[in-house]
Every structure is written in structure tokens, then in C-alpha cells.
């Protein structure tokens, strides 16, 4: 089969919509266009029925009850709703929130915002594997703590936090536990009961559904959790998120969850195999490549590696028919390399050389092999061009050099 270029290997950024999802959505743009809140005609009933089916499909994937699913515009809104909503609702109870240094910006920036409103936030560090220390978490809990917000799978390095232990700890201390499960749901098993999760952020477009739709799981019993809304209006979604429901996207989200539930075991194995093949083949041809974050506790579709002595953006430029992303500063507007890698203690020199590969449902073995070929060729060429590689080969200790920096 001929390889189709360019190759997409950036599935942590977004995923293509599965054709089966598109097909499920289409009728809800045209014939079944009703407003799910219209109670007095068949157009409304049909829309409402479709939404409720989707709610069941999403709930089933995470072992929740359909009533615990609150639709939002995506995981960023869900993170905002969880943190700001809990902060406001439980203000009487306390003003302390615990989160982690390598959360997505949707959590970190929301925490920064509530700090301005007088809340206190603890940002737990991670070790070089990218994992928090549970003892440190235990020590951070105070009588004023109302929320622990720790993600399940990290979006850059795919590292999985010990979510079950965190959930247990939170329950023990009667602190609410929110997890940004955006990268995990639909990829690996996620169970709100088993993990004692009280709030979870989900997004459809990371799991072969459409963009612009997500959900916040909000536990209804043991304990019954409430969040103050960010958006007021018609009282949709049990008053927690007003606004006419985006029916076609919700239908698509539901279908995406149903497919994921059905196909996850085989898909996980297939992607793990391809991902391991990618790393093995790179390692066979290139020296000095370093995996960032824990290898054992990681999403099966993620590979984040540093190619020492080759700056990330120049590597991306060389593999321009392959879509991946880099933790290099040059690919960001801030000129700072990845804060996630920095939090792991990855030196800035290596952070500049990191590449994130995100494999997905439509990734093939031919694509993996082509990517290996292109990466090997480009890294080899750029190392020939790299004064650092030359110096390292001559035995110069780059760390002890006194570099002139501004």
C-alpha cells in the first residue's frame, strides 16, 4: 500500500474524527436538528433522546451514571468548571487546593486565577520519572484543603499518575479529587468508582470525536458533589452549565466513547506494539537518545524522546512530511522550553532536543517505519552539523563548559 504523506503522529494534540462518528453525527445537523430543551414537540424529544443515549455511552466508558455527565465545550472548560466551581461552592469549608507542577495549563492557569481570589494552591513537584510522591501529597493536605486536582495521563510525556492511590488518599481525608483525564479516557481503562474520582475532565477530540465538546464528570453520591456554574442561563445540565446543548457533537462524543469501549483492549495492544517498535528502531540506529518520563507508567501511544545535540525545531524542519511536536523553545512563542520536562529535571539542553510522538487509531506500521527512516536520516545529518556532537565525541564535557549566556 502506498504511503500517504504527510503522516500525522501528533495524536495528543488532536485526533481525526472516526468516520463512524461522523456518520452518527450527520442526521443531527439536518433532519434531527431539534433543541434538546424543547419539551413539547418531536424535534425536541428526538434531540433529547440522542443526548441521553450519548450520556449513557460516555458514562459507561468511565463507569459513571449518566446523570453525572455535564456537557461542556471541552476539557479546558471542564477544568475551569471543576476548580473554580468547587472553590466557590466549598468556600465555607476551606480555601486550599493541591495540584501538580506538570498539569496542563488549563489547570495551572485556573489555579493561578483562584489564587488571585484569595485561595491557596500547593503545586506538588514530580520526580525524574514525572510522578508525584504520595507521601508529599499526604503531607500537603490540611484541614483547609477542599480539592486535589491531579491529572491522570500527561499530555507531553504520557506519564500516568498513581490515580487509585491519590483517590484513596483524598477519600480518607474527605477532600474532593478532580482529575484531568483528557489524554487517558478512551485510550486506557478509566473507572471513577475504582479510582475514587469525584470530578473528571474529558474531551471528545482527543478520542476520535469532534472538537468543541467535552464533559465534566461530577459525582452524585458518596459524596454528592456540587460545583458553582461558570455560565448562567437556562439552567441546563442540572444548573451547572447553561447553554443550548450541542446535539450533533454530543452524539459524536457518545459514539466515540462507545467505539473506544468496544475496541480499547485491542487498540491499546496494537499501539503499544507500534510505539515500542518506533523506539526500538530509533535506538538501533541512533545513539544518545533519551526517553523523557517513566517508561512503565505511560500511555501506550506516547513516546517522548530527546535526541541529544539536535535542536528540536531543526529536526521538525527536516522531517517536514511528518507531524509531531517538540518541547523545544523555538517551537513555542515564549522561547522557553517545555515546563513539563523542566519539572522532571530534564536539563534545558536536552529539553530543546525533545520530540513527542503521539500514535493513534489510524497509525500504521508502514508509517512508523517511514518516520523512523526520516528521523534517523535527519538526526544523523544534523549531528554532523552540530558542534555539540563533535565536542562530545572528542570527549569534551559539555556540562563543565562555561557557556556565554545573555
Amino acid at each position, binding site marked *: 500500500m502506498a504511503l500517504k504523506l504527510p503522516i500525522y503522529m501528533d495524536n495528543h494534540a488532536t485526533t481525526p474524527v472516526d468516520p463512524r462518528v461522523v456518520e452518527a453525527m450527520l442526521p443531527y445537523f439536518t433532519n434531527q436538528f431539534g433543541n434538546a430543551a424543547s419539551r413539547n414537540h418531536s424535534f425536541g424529544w428526538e434531540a433529547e433522546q440522542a443526548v441521553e443515549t450519548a450520556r449513557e455511552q460516555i458514562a459507561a466508558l468511565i463507569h459513571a451514571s449518566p446523570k453525572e455527565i455535564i456537557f461542556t465545550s471541552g476539557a479546558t472548560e471542564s477544568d475551569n468548571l471543576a476548580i473554580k466551581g468547587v472553590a466557590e461552592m466549598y468556600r465555607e469549608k476551606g480555601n486550599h487546593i493541591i495540584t501538580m507542577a506538570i498539569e496542563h495549563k488549563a489547570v495551572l492557569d485556573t489555579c493561578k486565577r483562584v489564587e488571585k481570589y484569595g485561595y491557596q494552591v500547593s503545586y506538588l513537584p514530580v520526580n525524574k520519572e514525572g510522578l508525584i510522591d504520595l507521601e508529599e501529597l499526604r503531607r500537603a493536605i490540611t484541614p483547609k484543603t477542599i480539592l486535589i486536582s491531579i491529572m491522570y495521563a500527561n499530555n507531553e510525556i504520557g506519564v500516568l499518575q498513581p490515580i487509585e492511590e491519590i483517590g484513596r488518599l483524598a477519600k480518607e481525608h474527605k477532600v474532593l479529587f478532580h482529575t484531568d483525564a483528557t489524554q487517558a479516557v478512551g485510550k486506557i481503562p478509566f473507572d471513577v468508582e475504582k479510582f475514587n474520582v469525584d470530578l473528571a475532565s474529558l474531551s471528545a477530540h482527543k478520542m476520535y470525536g469532534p472538537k468543541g465538546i467535552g464533559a465534566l464528570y461530577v459525582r452524585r453520591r458518596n459524596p454528592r458533589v456540587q460545583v458553582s456554574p461558570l455560565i448562567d442561563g437556562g439552567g441546563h445540565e442540572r444548573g451547572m452549565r447553561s447553554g443550548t446543548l450541542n446535539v450533533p457533537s454530543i452524539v459524536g462524543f457518545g459514539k466515540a466513547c462507545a467505539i473506544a469501549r468496544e475496541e480499547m483492549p485491542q487498540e491499546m495492544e496494537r499501539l503499544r506494539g507500534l510505539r515500542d517498535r518506533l523506539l526500538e528502531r530509533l535506538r538501533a540506529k541512533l545513539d544518545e537518545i533519551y526517553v523523557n518520563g517513566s517508561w512503565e507508567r505511560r500511555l501506550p501511544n506516547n513516546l517522548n524522546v530527546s535526541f541529544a545535540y539536535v535542536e528540536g525545531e531543526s529536526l521538525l524542519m527536516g522531517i517536514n512530511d511528518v507531524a509531531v511536536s517538540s518541547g523545544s523553545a523555538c517551537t513555542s512563542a515564549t522561547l522557553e522550553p517545555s515546563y513539563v520536562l523542566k519539572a522532571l529535571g530534564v536539563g534545558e539542553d536536552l529539553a530543546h532536543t525533545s520530540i513527542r510522538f503521539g500514535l493513534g487509531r489510524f497509525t500504521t506500521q508502514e508509517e512508523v517505519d517511514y518516520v523512523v527512516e526520516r528521523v534517523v536520516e535527519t538526526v544523523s545529518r544534523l549531528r554532523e*552539523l552540530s558542534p555539540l556532537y563533535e565536542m562530545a565525541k572528542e570527549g569534551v564535557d*559539555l556540562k*563543565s563548559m562555561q*557557556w556565554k549566556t545573555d
Partner: protein
Amino acid sequence: MAYSDKVLDHYKNPRNVGSLPKDDPNVGTGLVGAPECGDVMKLQMRINPQTEVIEDAKFKTFGCGSAIASSSLATEWVKGRTVEEALTIKNTEIVKELNLPPVKIHCSVLAEDAIKAALADYRKKHGQEQPTASQPAPAPAD
């Protein structure tokens, strides 16, 4: 980000890649930038001590495409010029030639610094006065 055709050309076909013997008295070496900043340029020139003409130039760069292109262009520009002439090369000329966007101007600054550092190294070897190099070449620590 879109790259200009000239940046792409230098990236794909970098001119004068390589190294000159750094202990040769007629070779000046400039090493500027830092791995932590994502850019390191090594620029070397072989200078005829009689005429002070730059007879050869080589570079190696760790950095983004614009950094590679800036240093590649620098080697092209210095070859055949005298030391005095090479010292007048300004980063703004590199920006203009390569159509560098504002976020990549530092790459051109680094290339100018590399030229100055290499020439300072050459002059030091010849016991001459230092030209006004803004960034002298760093030396390995013990």
C-alpha cells in the same frame, strides 16, 4: 511557522559545514551561545597573515533552522573578505537577507557574535589588539 526560501535553502544545503584545526595559528575559532538556550554556533576562519584575507570558513551549528541558515550565510559572506571588512558585517544584514521574523533575530545576533569571536581568537593568537567582540569565545573549564 513558515520559513523563507533562503532559510530553507541554507537548511537543506548548508554551505561550508565542517571544522578547521583549531590549534593552527592562522585559524580563528568562535564558539557562541549555550546548549541551555537552544543555540550554539561554532564558526572558524583561516586567515592569510600577510593579506589578512579570510581564505576559508567553516561552521557547525546546534540550533533551529534560522540559526543554521544564519551561520551558513555568515561563512559565505566572510570568505574572501579581509578581517576588517568581516568585522563590519551586521546582524541586520543577515535578517534582511534571510527574511528572518522578529522571533528569530537572536539567530542573526549570534552569527554576528560568532564572526567577531572567531576574529578575536585569531587576533589573540597573533598578539594583536582585540577587536570589539561582544562575546569572546568560551574556554573549557578545568
